């Protein structure tokens, strides 16, 4: 099987951070695996050390997650459980949601169908 040059490029996961009045939104794009998890962990570290707003992970453009990515998510959930703010997730593709369900993460993380649902829930 031949691999095309394009297909073997090491494209790291891209993260966009948006600040709303009462929430910080991390929009994840690409693949969250053992390669990209350390960088992602660094990006969220400051928010987890002393949460000052609600935190939303928007998975709309996340194509893939492995247990290395789940580790970062679990640390975020633990940090926010001990804070007065909420940590929620939204817009997962079916196979990403399945990974959360098999791992039992859906029992302690609220997962909304869309970012609008998440932002509305935070205002209630």
């Amino acid at each position: 099987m031949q691999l095309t040059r394009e297909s073997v490029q090491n494209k790291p996961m891209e993260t966009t951070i948006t600040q709303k009045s009462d929430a910080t939104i991390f929009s994840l794009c690409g693949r969250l695996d053992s390669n990209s998890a350390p960088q992602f962990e660094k990006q969220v570290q400051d928010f987890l050390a002393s949460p000052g707003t609600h935190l939303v992970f928007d998975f709309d453009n996340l194509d893939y997650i492995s247990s290395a990515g789940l580790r970062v998510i679990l640390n975020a959930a633990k940090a926010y459980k001990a804070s007065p703010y909420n940590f929620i997730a939204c817009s997962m593709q079916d196979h990403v949601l399945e990974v959360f369900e098999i791992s039992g993460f859906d029992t302690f993380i609220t997962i909304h169908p869309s970012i609008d649902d998440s932002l509305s829930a935070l205002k209630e």
Partner: protein
Amino acid sequence: MNISFQIKNKLTELVTLHAHLKNMQDDWAISKKTAAQINLVLDELVTNIIEHGDSENEHIIEIDLARTDCEFSIVITDDGPPFDPTLRTPPDTTLPVEERQCGGLGIHLVRNLCSHCNYVRANNKNILTLKKNLQEKCS
């Protein structure tokens, strides 16, 4: 249908693995969801081999994939030190978040996404054999 390829014991090789699987998904007409599940199974097991194996020296990990109408099979062979991931204690996925630990999640995912998972050590190699039902073809 079957393919075989080799990767080295480096985490950056997960990209090569993904590229092989992307081609396979197209060539073998496998659904996006099944392809993602197969990718996850291989990713978790290969990452285990790399992280728990002999990182000082280069090792080859051989991956053999085959599919019939109803079944997908995976064989992962490596010549690193003996390591049986199936012995890993499964995590308690019902615990509250404060008590949850990260360990064992990878093999837990593998067990849930495969119908069969077997480890043997033979000829100084670790050989993991996995099977997955392809329900989309056999319902």
